[in-house]
């Protein structure tokens, strides 16, 4: 039977993720794109748990646990070890949450990116420290409820994509589980490119965002269609917008199912809509210029 994405599953059932977790769908797709010759490095994040308690693993590929601050540094060492053994084939992938990527492990990926280390760094962005019970991170959007921002986060989300681009890396992309073919294609492409590659994956979280677990894929899709999470890739400096709806859906459609946005007043909603539209216009201008 022919399928639009590979059938081989390298993530097994029986893992410890919550019902409707997007990061597990993301891992399935990532490994469909990368294949078996992959070693994963995971810092403290939800995936520390999802990968299984010793001596069990939910993955068919090797996985190393790294401290919060040093996933990218650990991956450099794994890559150097492989090279010393003459293995240039195996992909080393960091699989980190937003807490490690935006905050605690920023220095180690920034160093690896600047040196052009040969690895794929993936941030599955669920916009807070979900594994420890929903504390605000640098990736948490403005106005959002978390355990540490009970009356709404007062700072805008850090623009990680801009920060990455400033490192002149070989490949940067965004990927959404609502678009499996685009997702798998980007990982297969990243596998073939040398140097530092980065993919940011949008990862809706039912308990942390306070929505029913069956809405996970729907929210991932709405984030793309409202312009909250545009799909694009930058290869050797060349920008490509992968999906450009003729007209963006209103932001309110994406916010409505999420309990974490309940405290947002109309004024704040208008402000958020304004910043999404403004960023979308910048991307369209960039698309026109490329």
């Amino acid at each position, binding site marked *: 039977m022919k*399928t639009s994405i590979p059938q081989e599953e390298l993530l097994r*059932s029986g893992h410890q993720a919550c019902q409707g977790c997007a990061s597990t769908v993301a891992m*399935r797709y990532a490994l469909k794109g990368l294949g078996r010759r992959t070693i994963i490095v995971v810092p403290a994040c939800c995936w520390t748990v999802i990968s299984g308690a*010793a*001596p*069990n693993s939910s*993955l068919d590929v090797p*996985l190393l646990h790294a401290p919060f601050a040093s996933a990218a540094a650990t991956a450099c060492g794994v890559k150097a070890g492989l090279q010393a053994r003459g293995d240039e084939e195996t992909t080393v992938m960091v699989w980190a949450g937003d807490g490690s990527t935006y905050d605690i492990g920023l220095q180690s990926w920034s160093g690896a990116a600047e040196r052009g280390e040969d690895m794929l760094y993936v941030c599955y962005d669920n916009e807070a420290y979900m594994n420890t019970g929903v504390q605000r991170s640098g990736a948490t959007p403005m106005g959002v409820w978390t355990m540490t921002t009970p009356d709404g986060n007062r700072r805008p989300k850090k623009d990680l994509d801009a920060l990455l681009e400033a490192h002149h890396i070989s490949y940067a992309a965004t990927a959404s*589980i609502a678009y499996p073919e685009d997702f798998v294609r980007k990982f297969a492409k990243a596998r073939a490119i040398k140097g530092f590659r980065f993919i940011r994956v949008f990862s809706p979280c039912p308990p942390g965002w306070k929505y029913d*677990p069956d809405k996970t894929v729907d929210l991932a899709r709405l984030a793309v269609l409202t312009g909250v999470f545009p799909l694009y890739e930058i290869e050797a400096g060349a920008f490509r917008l992968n999906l450009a709806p003729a007209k963006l859906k209103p932001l309110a459609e994406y916010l409505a199912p999420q309990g974490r946005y309940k405290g947002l007043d109309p004024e704040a909603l208008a402000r958020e809509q304004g910043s999404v539209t403004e960023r979308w216009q910048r991307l369209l201008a960039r698309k026109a210029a490329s």
Partner: protein
Amino acid sequence: MPRLEPPQRLPRIISSPGSTTFNRTSSWRNLVPRIDLALCTGCLLCWKFCPEACVGLPGPKPEIGMDYCKGCGVCAQECPAECISMDQEAEA
């Protein structure tokens, strides 16, 4: 020289690949998906989107692995033919 123990006799610090399948996560489930295969068009979106990787493809139509399904309902929500319903799980 002491003889090296074979790897399987070393302390189990290295996890066995894909070994979480011993963990039957069906006990997490409150809602249970039922596919009406007569209405199923075989688009396989349920297989693609399943967070548990528990939708199998034994043929052109999918089959949900009930040992692992946690009942999240993503398949029912995403099915374009609306042929998956989420029913209350029977009391154990």
